[in-house]
């Protein structure tokens, strides 16, 4: 038995391994327990260690991606806006109760045409992060987004969204103000748009707060971005009943761009400069600009009604199930 291998296995698995090791140890002491059975049990135990250490290695790899996707060094929504759109003009407020600076919205120009741009902005230093509430949207933000998307729909402007959020803000005021309805309302509105919608996940795609802006005709993920139904930390706390399982949860949830492409939840992976977007932000922004231009070209072929039908059909066809 290779004890060094056990050391590298995630803590979560250790308890199970130790208890089955104790069982094997007991077997060894039984007088009538034949050697063959013992060997069998031991080889199975070794296989399990092998399996768990592989899972642990993979989990560590996925976790590196999670950390990279959250890194403050990566270009953020405002960087993309500045590098991609001319004449960008920010628009504020939901016209109901206020503004949300975690979500940026406005109009700009690309390829000689006007588009509406909406995205989460996390902020880089502490001050910025507090100002932008770490990119965690509140109802005012989702309603502002709806207002700008409606404006785009009215004038026939395509909508570009950038997604980068740990999730919608979990606060008392946000709840009192109808966080649920703000998110579902944003999703619904995006299905009703008669203009092309392009969504790009640039960093962290956290749950409903991310989906609220990600109902695109084309949804693309940057290579090192993640997109998940729940944060690995929260998932681990609920299912593993232990926060040390966050890396295992990250692996189990399949949250990398490659996984999502394979599952059919997104249309495209946008490759990043070697080592990640943070190594060469200028180039990253150029790559995303080219992607948006190309996508606008692809989607420009469709009639407004066709776009809406295809969008609904695409999302309504997602799911794996069986009969019987």
């Amino acid at each position, binding site marked *: 038995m290779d004890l060094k291998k056990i050391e590298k296995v995630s803590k979560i698995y250790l308890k199970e391994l130790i208890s089955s090791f104790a069982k094997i140890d007991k077997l060894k002491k039984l007088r009538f327990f034949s050697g063959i059975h013992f060997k069998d049990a031991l080889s199975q135990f070794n296989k399990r260690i092998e399996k768990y250490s592989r899972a642990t290695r993979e989990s560590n790899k996925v976790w590196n991606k999670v950390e990279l996707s959250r890194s403050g060094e990566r270009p953020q929504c405002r960087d993309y806006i500045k590098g991609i759109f001319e004449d960008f003009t920010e628009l504020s407020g939901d016209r109901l109760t206020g503004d949300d600076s975690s979500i940026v919205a406005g109009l700009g120009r690309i390829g000689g045409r006007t588009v509406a741009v909406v995205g989460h902005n996390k902020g880089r230093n502490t001050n910025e992060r507090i100002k932008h509430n770490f990119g965690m949207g509140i109802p005012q933000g989702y309603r502002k987004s709806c207002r700008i998307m409606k404006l785009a729909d009215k004038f026939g402007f395509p909508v570009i969204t950038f997604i980068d959020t740990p999730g*919608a803000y979990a606060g008392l005021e946000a*709840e009192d103000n*109808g966080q649920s309805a703000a998110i579902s309302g944003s999703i619904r509105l995006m299905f009703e748009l008669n203009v092309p919608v392009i969504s790009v996940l640039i960093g962290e795609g956290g749950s409903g707060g991310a989906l609220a802006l990600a109902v695109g005709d084309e949804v693309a993920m940057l290579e090192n971005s993640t997109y*998940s139904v*729940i944060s690995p930390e929260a998932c681990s706390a609920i*299912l593993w009943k232990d926060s040390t399982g966050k890396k295992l949860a990250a692996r189990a949830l399949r*949250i990398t761009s490659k996984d999502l492409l394979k599952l059919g939840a997104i249309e495209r992976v946008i490759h990043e400069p070697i080592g990640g977007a943070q190594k060469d932000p200028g180039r990253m922004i150029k790559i995303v600009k080219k992607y948006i231009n190309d996508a606008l070209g692809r989607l420009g072929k469709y009639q407004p009604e066709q776009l809406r039908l295809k969008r609904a059909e695409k999302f309504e066809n*997602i799911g794996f199930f*069986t009969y*019987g």
Partner: protein
Amino acid sequence: MDKSQKHKCEACGKDIEQEVLIKNLNVCPYCGHHEYIGCRRRLDITVDEGSFKEMDSDMRSVDFLKFRDLKKYSQRLEEAREKTGLSEAIITGEAGIEGYGVAIGVMDFGFMGGSMGSVVGEKIKNLCNRSIKNDIPLIIFSSSGGARMQEGIISLMQMAKTVSSVGRVMACNIPYISVITNPTTGGVSASFSTIADIIIAEPGALFCFAGPRVVRQTMKKDIPDDFGLAERNLANGQVDMIVSRSDMKETLARLIRLLRG
């Protein structure tokens, strides 16, 4: 079950005879607390006797991610089926409510916390299609902790899927009534359950996006006792009305009558 057995009310702590509790639709006769009620029983007390025709009864979840936490997803599914006698967290079909034909879906919190995975999403989509095809109002009783983590990103996508489906019903000018029962949170509260012509909540139902534990953690301070409850949601303008279980059927029938002009 022994009918003379006593049941302690979760809210007021008073002993209730099992027989009384059942007769009272699982509502405490002393304090009016609405307790959990399974989806089959819910249908029994909501739709006209013998009118329910189930759809997609043989649709099953698959463990397509080979998701394993402390247990395998496939094992959790098996246990949930055994425990509840249900095949999934929602039961859907056509029924009559005081003679009105409806497409009705009822979620069951007992099945993996009522979580929404591919099957819940697909059943709702098919229910919506039935509502459109037969031009009958859509009614969904929600009760869910949110999206089903064991289906990863595909469960998040069910939020978009169900919003699109109920949106198509509403675009046909067919009434859609959402009934919020305890608890309705996360991916279900932030999708089809809050996209409705009318939103009704049962008394005392927890109805929020983030649960009280998470919000307390984020805010790092105490939150009001009535956080996320139906009554607070009513005061905040998030639901149309609060309707007790015993009045639900009559209210739904009246709303259909009104909405159908």
